[in-house]
């Protein structure tokens, strides 16, 4: 039987076996444990949890190990697992103002109640390769402040709120239950709750580039980093049979409140507006990119002209998901020879017709 360019079950099984061997690498080098990835590649784990929409550091680390460190592949693994999980309900909204803060900075005031807290940040590191790490250098213990931080730090935005300088964001009591993007399809016009869900699981690189484009004039919205905070927040769940919320545990979270200008209108005095970004774990680049894009997508709602990609809701929301994008781009690897054959027959017929027309014209000219 004719088998060229076709692969059977055995070819697939062999390819998978080879892949597993490649994943392991040189067997003389000790194998990575999931715990090592979870502890020492934590920011990779955080990104997989964020875009995989599942807070589970162990599973995210396992996904990274299985995916040979490929982030999008690991995100895909976690998403596919997430699909199979039973949903018991939704948690109470997180109270991020009660976050146990490890890092909190604001770019709009020199000092803020509770102070600026740098925390574990790359921001002021000199990007010089540290060769002591190549020799497995253990770092010296970090010094500990004599007086610990307050249990909670008030949000910087709240300071602006007192003067009504910034829009308030309080959901009206009759606000509909937020839709669940993972259970229902994206529909337009997409409410902000839907947009934020999409951006929260959206590809970091895509949001980073779009956010960057707004800074360079493609839908500029005058951003200031009002506050960036990272720390632990408590997740609470209200079980219907209990009638009150119980604590499920703490998760690490990054939050970015972007403060943006708004010119106001004839009826509204000028007021600052907001863009919001968040990520599981420590993901400031993602949270900031997301906040810029969230604000850009509010253009229509705020009466701004929609002229740029970052402001175009359909464009952004339909192309932000890297699991969808990787699939459709890479499906071009699948066989397409039936369609290509159809194109071949059409293009050959068209070329034949064109050649005949040309010949006829030449013959006519010769007469």
């Amino acid at each position, binding site marked *: *039987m*004719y*088998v*060229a*360019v*076709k*692969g*059977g*079950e055995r*070819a*697939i099984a062999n390819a998978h076996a080879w892949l597993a061997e490649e994943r392991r690498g040189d067997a003389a080098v000790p194998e990575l444990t999931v715990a090592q990835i979870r502890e020492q590649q934590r920011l990779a784990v955080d990104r997989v949890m964020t875009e995989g929409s599942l807070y589970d550091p162990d599973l995210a680390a396992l996904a990274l190990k299985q995916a040979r460190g490929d982030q999008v592949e690991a995100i*895909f693994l976690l*998403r*596919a697992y*997430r*699909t*199979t999980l*039973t949903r018991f309900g939704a948690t109470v909204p997180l109270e991020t103002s009660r976050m146990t803060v490890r890092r909190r900075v604001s770019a709009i005031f020199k000092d803020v109640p509770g102070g600026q807290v740098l925390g574990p940040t790359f921001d002021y590191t000199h990007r010089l390769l540290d060769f002591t790490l190549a020799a497995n250098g253990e770092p010296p213990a970090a010094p500990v402040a004599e007086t610990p931080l307050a249990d909670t730090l008030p949000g910087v935005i709240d300071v602006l709120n007192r003067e009504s300088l910034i829009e308030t964001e309080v959901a009206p009591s009759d606000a509909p239950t937020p839709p669940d993007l*993972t*259970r*229902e*399809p*994206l*529909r*337009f*016009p997409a409410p902000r709750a839907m947009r934020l869900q999409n951006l929260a699981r959206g590809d970091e690189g895509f949001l980073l580039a779009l956010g960057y484009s707004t800074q360079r004039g493609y839908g500029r919205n005058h951003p200031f980093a009002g506050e960036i905070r990272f720390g632990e927040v408590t997740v609470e769940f209200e079980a219907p049979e209990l009638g009150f919320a119980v604590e499920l545990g703490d998760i690490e979270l990054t939050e970015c409140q972007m403060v943006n200008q708004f010119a106001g209108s004839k009826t509204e005095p000028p007021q600052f507006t907001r863009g919001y970004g968040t990520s599981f774990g420590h993901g400031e680049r993602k949270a900031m990119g997301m906040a810029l894009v969230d604000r850009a997508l509010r253009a229509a709602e705020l009466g701004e002209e929609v002229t740029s990609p970052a402001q175009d809701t*359909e464009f952004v929301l*339909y192309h932000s998901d890297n*699991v*969808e994008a*990787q*699939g*459709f*781009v*890479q*499906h071009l690897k*699948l*066989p*397409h*020879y*039936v*369609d290509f*054959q*159809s*194109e*071949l*027959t*059409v293009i050959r*017929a*068209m070329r034949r*017709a064109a050649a005949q027309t040309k010949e006829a014209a030449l013959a006519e000219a010769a007469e």
Partner: protein
Amino acid sequence: MNAMTPPVVDDGYSFAFLDEQTKRMIRRAILKAVAIPGHQIPFGSREMPLSYGWGTGGIQVTASVIGRGDTLKVIDQGADDTTNAVSIRGFFRRMTGVATTERTEDATIVQTRHRIPETRLAEGQVIVYQVPIPEPLRWLEPRETETCKMHGLAEYGAMHVKLYEDIVRYGRIETAYDYPVMVNGRYLMRPSPIPKFDNPKMDYMPALQLFGAGREKRIYAVPPYTSVKSLDFEDHPFEIERWEHQCALCGSGDSFLDEIVVDDQGNHAFVCSDTDYCGQRRAEGHEGTGMPEGYLQRQGGRE
């Protein structure tokens, strides 16, 4: 080839992978789709353990309609042994344990990518198409909000203009696959990227036709015995591809042919894209002119 290895069913998952609530949601979307032939129904497409673009829509549709008594056939490019068809068939064997077949007439469900089998489908059979882009107007209008309106108003002039411009520019309609069809005289529909050769098979097909687009989260359907007309003009009637060749293996002159490059001189051979159809014809004693001298040896003698 039809004697498949006995399935090892993975009972760590629900039957056919999806949980029962999800299947009910998808079945409701399918029922709605059947009730409004050719109309795209949004559904809560799930993240599947196979990649988007690999047939997640078709897989979810099949998973929602398949039962223990079904017999499944999976093809890609018309063939049962292409890698992705093998992979999807393996997925369903593992998740359901149902019987699989390569014989079109023995299947109760045929999941396909890019082809409709040459063997005429019968009443009681279901064909599930994997759909990458469900919206027939997408290349003309990228915005979903706009195309929704165009369907609502049956405003399909833009497509006719596109086909007309093809004729003006090239003397013929240059669309070769995913050729737009009008379903039941109402909805413009993408038949999925099947070659236009297969379009006439959809018209008044006795089998139920279901279409699943996972990434785009849409399901649509054509019920049995429903009119499916390829768009054309009175003076430029719809035409299908023709070959000057016959299948080198079975000699068929009226099936869709794949072109194989047989050597580095650019010589070609043509063989049936539908491997089951070709195999059955050869079993009945039909013969083609054969593959070129030395070709099989160069393929490592694989037979």
